């Protein structure tokens, strides 16, 4: 069976103006227990790549610049 691309709205948002991933920071990507954050090759900033979030918050708590916001996933909001 062929695959489709079904859109999903992800709970974690990164403020690209604040993110310093391009300066070598990878903290949020490092700490996420579900390993769902990545640094974008395009923008050099962190973003949520996979919608598999436990809304646990280490990414936000440990981010040095306050760039990460964890929202409640829509399905349970």
């Amino acid at each position, binding site marked *: *069976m062929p695959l489709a691309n079904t859109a999903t709205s992800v709970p974690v948002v990164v403020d690209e103006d604040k993110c310093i991933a391009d300066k070598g920071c990878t903290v949020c990507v490092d700490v*996420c227990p*579900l390993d769902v954050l990545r640094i974008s090759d395009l923008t050099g900033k962190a973003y949520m790549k996979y919608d598999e*979030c436990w809304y*646990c*918050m280490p990414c936000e708590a*440990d981010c040095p610049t306050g760039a990460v916001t964890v929202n*409640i*996933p829509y399905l*349970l909001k």
Partner: protein
Amino acid sequence: MDDIRSGLSEVECDVLIIGGGTAGPMAAYKARKKNPDATVILLEKANVKRSGAISMGMDGLNNAVIPGHSTPEQYTKEITIANDGICDQAAVYKYAQNCYGIIQELDQFGIRFQKDENGEYDVKKVHHMGAYVLPMPNGETVKKALYRQLRRMRVLISNRFMATRLLTGKSGRAAGAIAVNTRSGEFLVIKAKAVIMCMGAAGRLGLPTSGYLFGTYENAANSGEGYAMAYHAGAKLANLECFQINPLIKDYNGPACAYVAGPFGGYTANSQNERFIECDYWSGQMMQEFYNELTSGKGPVYLKLNHLHEDTANHIEQILHTVERPTRGRFHDGRGTRYARDMIEMHISEIGFCSGHSASGVYVDEFARTTIPGLYAAGDMASVPHNYMLGAFTNGAVAGEDAIDFAAQVDFEDYDGEAIAAEQERVLAPTRREDGIPPNQIEYKIRRLVNDYLQPPKVTKKYEICQSRLAEVREDMQNAMIARDAHELMRATEVASILDCADMAAFASLFRQESRWGLYHWRVDHPERNEEQWKCHVLLSKQDGAMACEKHPIQPYIIPIADDEKDAYYNQRIQAQA
């Protein structure tokens, strides 16, 4: 990142610890501390800095046995009764004796427990008999403090490696494990003289009512590999039919925290504002009462704090919204609910395996030894009942110390090289397909079936249907699942564990032909508890490639329990509403 690369490396160590959440770091620390010359590897699927149930800390210790507040004898008695008598007391008693020392050690690590103005531990009374609850006001630093100790002890830490199978030697002894990197798909074989499994609960077994796969009560990284790996290695697993089910905040799926709100006067109420829980201890019986109320006309069920002084309610809110599950505040903001004003709707969680809250786990003795020589288990995946966080720490310590001694006495065990090639093939199979079913769909289907058929009340016919449906899904998984990058490969590998756990949950439940542990094992076709035939463990294991169960006697009690004590407890009970 995430592109699949081929590769296989091999490393050696004296003791391998799999899972760096709560029990794992403590096991690694204690092993190195006891033998600084030994090599100790801590393997973690995520990153030890923030992995596991306590990733953002904990509200407190639920079961601290502290001199002056409770005794090991009293604690052992309460756990035995709360677990309906199915309890090898030696391990519980040993925990109760050791845990105070562990608290003091954690305190020295910089982990803060609530103290009164004289610096004494501020233990709270929640249960009728002993006082066991010790809050942790700045619990969010727990993992950082542990991590610091591991760095100082020079434990070798391997992050982002997911163990997939254990290796056993020709004599049946533990020989190591195979792991796959979650960002590259490369394999790592770790030869070890002793292996300690600390992979946490099987948290992705049932599906949360929200339908969000990762909105589980347990840390969603805990997908049950520990249980599946132990099974495939031939270890015995105890009382898997004693499910974990917890009372939670509806939809948010985070704990509603009787242990936090209780000491301040908060409680669980029905829609008539009344308390309804008779049972004193968090147990299957309590969950039965919860379930009964939910399904009766008196539901829904609420967390009630709005009778307390506004300052008190706000104080509780502040605690609950900063540690453990800190997004809770955001959830309530979104819903417009305030603890000081509103009752907070609660619900029951999806099912899982977890000895931390109930009793389902790999069968271990008081030294954390499994039934396989050289293989240990501690924390939520080991069979010591009602263990919680302090149990994970304490028994992790026991396992680390015993394993490092064991490793000093033995040499590496040879394992079958073909097992590694076969395991690589099993894991990588989904990457070999061009087209097929992605793991998230297979996972959803398994977990939806678990909800439809395995969630209590347990009905024999429904269980049988489930078994045959799961067998169909297994065929799809084996023949059609695809993984397009290393991350998806991790999910695909997890799906296999989830399916194994679902099969084990069904099999063990059908074997025990009675009802026990309240809601956890409420079998509609066998509604009574049967002390004569079933006051025993049920051990599940792999025999000649297939699942098998056996009865196993309970160790004679070391702390006897008088009949009237048992009766006092059972008299409080409300029967299931069949």
